[in-house]
């Protein structure tokens, strides 16, 4: 039809009207489309695992594509917390919550690659080529440089020109293989991340309490009345463990106090915050001891019965002007013979229970600590006196038997030349307050990496064996020499002195290492263990490397270029290697140390002749295995997907290289092949041992029927050991790590247990398995008096039923030793008590703690008067001296640390975490910023005598200007997370700034206090 003007207008009007009507809402509602997003997990496969970052060990639920059917290839697409996990209860911190982006990071390696000497690029190689070549390089270097005998003609069987870093994020099963691999070849330079983090904790807590581990557990923190957070920042570094600090606060009315150079995230929710100069914690804590003793606010009965306070110290022990008796200034070390008890006719230590003898430990300690008056503490620390006294008073209140304080610390105490003694002071405070062994008490070392506790337990440290035994030194030429040196003599009659069992644990280890080759006639293969002359810790070894004495290095799950102090020097050291092997899920700075990254890594690749093998490893989500959290829980995890591309599990890599190396030795012979060939490696597939068979090996087997005292068979030949109590020193038991015995028994894998029943005070003995013997609070016998009555009935965790000890926790005590038996609760010590005075060889720098300044310090004359300013026993390489700065040039104190959003140098590879903190920054107090004309967001240069970094300035009120020794002092905060690889913006490795010197006892570097200058750029 024809459309006229009128029809057109009418039609148009109708359309407009209709449209308007619809727009105004006259139209009938449409059938609603999907109102909510589809729930994405409905039938996805769910796999249980544990977070790979920190030592809280949070439970994970990993969801992967497909429902587990064989034909579906799982790919993990979502991870959230496991609500059944007793510690994490479904929570994950920003790092854990973002794990899916770590698994799928663009930085994941998919195939092996190779960098030729002088080359500027990676080339892809096959596994076969890589492992053949590495086995050949290892053998050639070992054959050339293996040392069978030292200059004195002693058998040492060590290989020093190649070293290995083992990964504390890998599983225990990988760790066991690492140990066998490295030690069979005679490597002494074997270390793990514990060297860079909690070395001092072990060095401090073992001599004080008996074991070098966190005393209590994460959930138990909720039982505290006072929480002192100092030398740690759990809200940032252990966010989910911090849950239980909040529980203590909310449900137990606990007072939470934070003492830290920065008002940090822990301080944000604390009741009280006090600032402190980085590097002065020892003075603060000795001041607390002085306060407790001068105000007589100690738990007297506990101190008298459960510490060595009444023990009498030799007359020739003394302390004068910062030095203990026996100091040799030339050697920078002590003759420790005077650091000992008076002995009676039987050779036992003299004890004066009345504490009247002026040489009693408690009286010497009182005298020693008396110099740390509040005025002196305030001058040294910069903490306002009223704040210091508030902390003293609050802690002192918990000397009441029914109140406890817990102390939470981490690397803020370990990363000092004086780290061990800082931690020991805190442990002594807890002994004086009667807080050790108590629910809600203790000294809680918050470990770093997810399995750093496990790698420490497994002895993956230069001079250690599994289970806190020591590797023999060259003067210990026979097994008898060794045992005489390491098995402690009884200091007091009737004590447990558990280390007297060392021969059983040692022989069981040797039977695991050498199998049938370990016999009584060859001292169980004693000669095959390398013997040391000195420590080959990371600082020492990189010094050797710098001198050109190291040819090969293996870095497994370790990024030493980023993690070690004085990055520029570390890079120089790596440049002197002939070959470097990295095994890592990620593309690390270390594997790319030869690449020019402009100002971030200014090198000429053509000048670096190191050949580098970059081997792609699986990550936590792609393997079965166990890791040990800070509370000593061994938790088993499961594979949720296969590694990407052509990546292999660590065990597969180690197994393949080792199998090839052995084949070469079998075929060609070479330097001292016996330990390489005799190492027991009887896995079904020697190139790829399964985690299950290795875990059982760590627990151990009976090699013959084991009988009890009455001749009854308690363990049959071939069965898994039920615990370490059945171990023998006659070769009839094998166990790699005695403290892990009980983790995988005839009853099955105890580490995979999931009964989260609370047996009281938050104890969950049915969840996973804890060493030793599934005890959840160490030294728990000390929670009761000598008669067996609890100091606080509300906190009773074990009880005597007339015949045995039992209760909510496993007693840390002989179960049949009745109350009043005189058996002390500190069963690892020959004295049976906690040690306020730690004599003998336990510590290199004094049986009492003393405050010493950091190597770089703004304090040039101490408030303590004439004294040794710096730790007189700290090792100091001559090469390092010119690398130290002075306060005239570098007037500010800097400290490095982690922030919540990022974990070390990994999470910058995880996109979601990179989004949360995309760019490197430093923190500067508002007063200093004002003085230097720096505004928030400006780019600043922070320099030390070793190098500089440039970063954005976060200007904050949270870093206070302090008054130290009468002068204003500003501090600078340097988070340690960015680098030139990853998803975050490129940045400088913060360890460019830090000094290469370590704690006197453990050689853990002084990352936490050094001098810098700051400029606006």
């Amino acid at each position: 039809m024809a459309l006229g003007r009128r029809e057109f207008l009418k039609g148009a009007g109708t359309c407009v009207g209709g449209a308007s009507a619809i727009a105004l809402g006259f139209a009938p509602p449409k059938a609603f489309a999907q109102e909510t997003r589809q729930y994405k997990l409905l039938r996805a496969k769910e796999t249980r695992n544990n977070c790979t970052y920190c030592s809280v060990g949070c439970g994970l639920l990993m969801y992967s594509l497909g429902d587990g059917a064989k034909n579906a290839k799982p790919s993990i697409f979502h991870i959230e917390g496991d609500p059944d996990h007793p510690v994490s209860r479904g929570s994950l911190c920003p790092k854990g919550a973002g794990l899916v982006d770590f698994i799928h990071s663009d930085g994941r390696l998919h195939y092996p690659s190779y960098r030729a000497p002088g080359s500027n690029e990676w080339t892809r190689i096959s596994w076969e080529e890589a492992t053949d070549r590495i086995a050949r390089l290892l053998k050639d270097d070992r054959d050339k440089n293996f040392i069978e005998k030292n200059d004195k003609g002693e058998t040492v069987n060590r290989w020093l020109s190649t070293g290995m870093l083992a990964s504390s994020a890998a599983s225990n099963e990988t760790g066991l293989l690492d140990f066998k691999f490295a030690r069979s070849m005679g490597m002494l330079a074997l270390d793990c991340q514990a060297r860079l983090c909690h070395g001092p904790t072990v060095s401090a807590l073992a001599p004080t309490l008996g074991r070098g581990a966190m005393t209590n557990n994460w959930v138990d923190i909720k039982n505290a009345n006072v929480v002192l957070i100092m030398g740690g920042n759990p809200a940032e570094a252990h966010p989910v463990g911090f849950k239980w600090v909040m529980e203590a606060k909310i449900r137990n009315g606990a007072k939470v106090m934070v003492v830290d150079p920065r008002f940090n995230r822990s301080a944000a929710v604390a009741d009280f915050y006090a600032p402190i100069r980085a590097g002065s914690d020892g003075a603060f804590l000795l001041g607390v001891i002085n306060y407790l003793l001068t105000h007589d606010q100690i738990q007297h009965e506990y101190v008298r019965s459960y510490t060595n306070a009444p023990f009498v110290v030799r007359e020739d022990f003394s302390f004068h002007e910062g030095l203990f008796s026996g100091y040799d200034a030339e050697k920078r070390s002590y003759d420790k013979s005077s650091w000992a008890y008076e002995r009676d006719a039987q050779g036992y230590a003299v004890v004066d229970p009345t504490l009247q003898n002026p040489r009693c430990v408690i009286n010497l300690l009182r005298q020693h600590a008396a110099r740390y008056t509040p005025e002196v503490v305030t001058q040294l620390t910069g903490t306002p006196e009223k704040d210091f006294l508030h902390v003293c008073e609050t802690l002192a209140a918990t000397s009441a038997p029914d109140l406890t304080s817990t102390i939470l610390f981490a690397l803020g105490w370990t990363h000092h030349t004086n780290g061990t003694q800082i931690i020991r002071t805190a442990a002594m405070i807890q002994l004086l307050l009667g807080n050790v062994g108590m629910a809600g008490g203790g000294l809680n070392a918050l470990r770093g990496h997810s399995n750093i506790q496990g790698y420490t337990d497994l002895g993956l440290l230069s001079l250690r064996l599994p289970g806190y035994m020591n590797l023999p030194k060259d003067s210990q030429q026979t097994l008898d020499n060794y045992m005489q040196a390491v098995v402690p003599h009884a200091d007091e009659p009737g004590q447990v002195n558990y280390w007297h069992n060392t021969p059983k644990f040692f022989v069981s280890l040797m039977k695991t290492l050498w199998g049938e080759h370990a016999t009584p006639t060859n001292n169980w293969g004693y000669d095959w263990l390398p013997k040391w002359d000195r420590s080959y810790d990371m600082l020492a070894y990189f010094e050797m490397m710098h001198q050109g004495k190291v040819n090969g290095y293996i870095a497994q799950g370790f990024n030493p270029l980023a993690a070690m102090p004085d990055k520029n020097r570390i890079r120089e050291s790596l440049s002197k290697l002939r070959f470097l092997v990295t095994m890592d899920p990620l593309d690390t700075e270390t594997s790319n140390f030869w690449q020019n990254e402009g100002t971030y890594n200014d090198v000429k690749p053509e000048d670096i002749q190191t050949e580098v093998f970059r081997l792609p490893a699986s990550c936590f989500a792609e393997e079965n295995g166990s890791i040990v959290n800070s509370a000593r829980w061994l938790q088993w995890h499961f594979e949720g997907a296969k590694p990407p591309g052509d990546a292999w599990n660590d065990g597969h890599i180690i197994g393949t290289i080792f199998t090839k190396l052995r084949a070469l030795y079998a075929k060609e012979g070479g330097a001292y092949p016996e330990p390489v060939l005799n190492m027991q490696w009887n896995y079904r597939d020697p190139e790829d041992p399964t985690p299950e068979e290795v875990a059982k090996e760590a627990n151990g087997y009976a090699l013959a029927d084991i009988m009890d005292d009455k001749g009854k068979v308690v363990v049959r030949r071939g069965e898994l050991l039920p615990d370490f109590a059945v171990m023998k020193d006659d070769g009839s038991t094998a166990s790699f790590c005695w403290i892990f015995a009980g983790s995988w028994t005839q009853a099955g894998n105890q580490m995979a247990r999931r009964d989260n029943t609370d047996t009281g005070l938050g104890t969950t003995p049915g969840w996973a398995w804890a060493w030793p013997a599934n005890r959840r609070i160490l030294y728990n016998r000390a929670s009761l008096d000598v008669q067996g009555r609890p100091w606080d009935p509300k906190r009773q965790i074990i009880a005597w039923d007339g015949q045995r000890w039992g209760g909510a926790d496993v007693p840390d005590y002989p179960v049949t030793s009745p109350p009043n038996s005189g058996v002390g609760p500190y069963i690892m010590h020959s004295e049976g008590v906690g040690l306020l005075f730690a004599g003998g060889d336990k510590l290199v720098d004094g049986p009492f703690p003393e405050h010493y300044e950091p190597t770089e310090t703004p304090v040039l004359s101490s408030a303590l008067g004439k004294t040794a300013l710096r730790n007189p026993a700290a090792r100091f390489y001559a090469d390092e001296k010119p690398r130290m700065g002075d306060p005239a040039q570098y007037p500010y104190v800097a400290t490095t640390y982690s922030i919540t959003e990022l974990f070390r140098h990994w999470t910058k590879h995880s996109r979601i975490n990179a989004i949360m903190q995309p760019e490197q920054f430093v923190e500067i107090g508002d007063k200093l910023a004002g003085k230097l004309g720096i505004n928030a967001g400006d780019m600043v240069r922070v320099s030390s005598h070793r190098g500089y970094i440039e970063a954005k300035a976060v200007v904050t009120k949270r870093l206070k200007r302090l008054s130290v020794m009468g002068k204003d002092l500003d501090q600078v905060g340097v988070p340690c997370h960015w680098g030139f690889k990853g998803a975050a913006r490129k940045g400088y490795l913060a360890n460019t700034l830090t000094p290469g010197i370590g704690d006197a006892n453990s050689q853990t570097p002084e990352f936490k206090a050094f001098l810098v200058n700051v400029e606006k750029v």
Partner: protein
Amino acid sequence: MGMQSQDIIRRSATNGLTPLPQARSHEQEVAKLIDVSLCTGCKGCQVACSEWNDLRDEVGHNVGVYDNPANLTAETWTVIRFDEREDEAGKLEWLLRKEGCMHCAEPGCLKACPSPGAILQFANGIVDFQSDQCIGCGYCIAGCPFDVPRISQKDNHAYKCTLCSDRVAVGQEPACVKTCPTGAISFGSKAEMKDLAATRVEELQSRGHAGAGLYDPAGVGGTHVMYVLTHADQPSLYHRLPDNPHISPIVRGWKEWLKPVGALGFIATLAGAFVHYMGVGANTTDETPPPEPKSKQDNAEHDPNENGRDA
């Protein structure tokens, strides 16, 4: 009494002529309670939110503060706000607040939205954007008293927190709630969250925080995301949290007054035209014959607001 079913009680730009299903109305409201006194600003909630919702924002810059991303975006639905404050006595506080959609009982976004069904409110209190229905006009931003919705630069649709309606729909708590390490975020029925808040406020007051209180602002009918504030007497200390949020008078004027009046005007015009047509008839022209008269009808009986849950 379920809390997870997604029964719609309000729908943007939709009148009530055909009422929404209401039979299953015996449903509890849910709420998220954020206790700022327990928040450490860890950003676990930010990561869990992005991870669950498959969001990945740009890797940004540090601008001299901890806040990152620096603001809410279409791909960042919650951020922690960090504010340093020294009180009169010189005591330093680090005020940390998780910012995101408050899920108002009277949502300004929904009121302002002109696109039918682009914003829904469920009986359990969740206000959810149906971004595929969004026309990108940005009125929701103007309507929101908390400045929460964001228009994506990529697709020109608006986005914000869903309170994890997909998780709540199957009985789970939102991702941020589950992950929160310190227990600063809780989830439950609104009644229980108010009880919990009362306990927390009491505890905070006993610790000397006289100003502690619950933030559940009446100006928007209360919210399904509530705060326990240490300084509830000064909400604006927490990164400009509105002291008394309400829907902007312009949005109210437009939606509550102008729009019905406009509709009435429209109807009256239409009715007048019809009456005129019936009474006077069409103009005749040469081309077409005049129409036959028809029976009288009154469209005006349809008042757009009579049954309307929303104008």
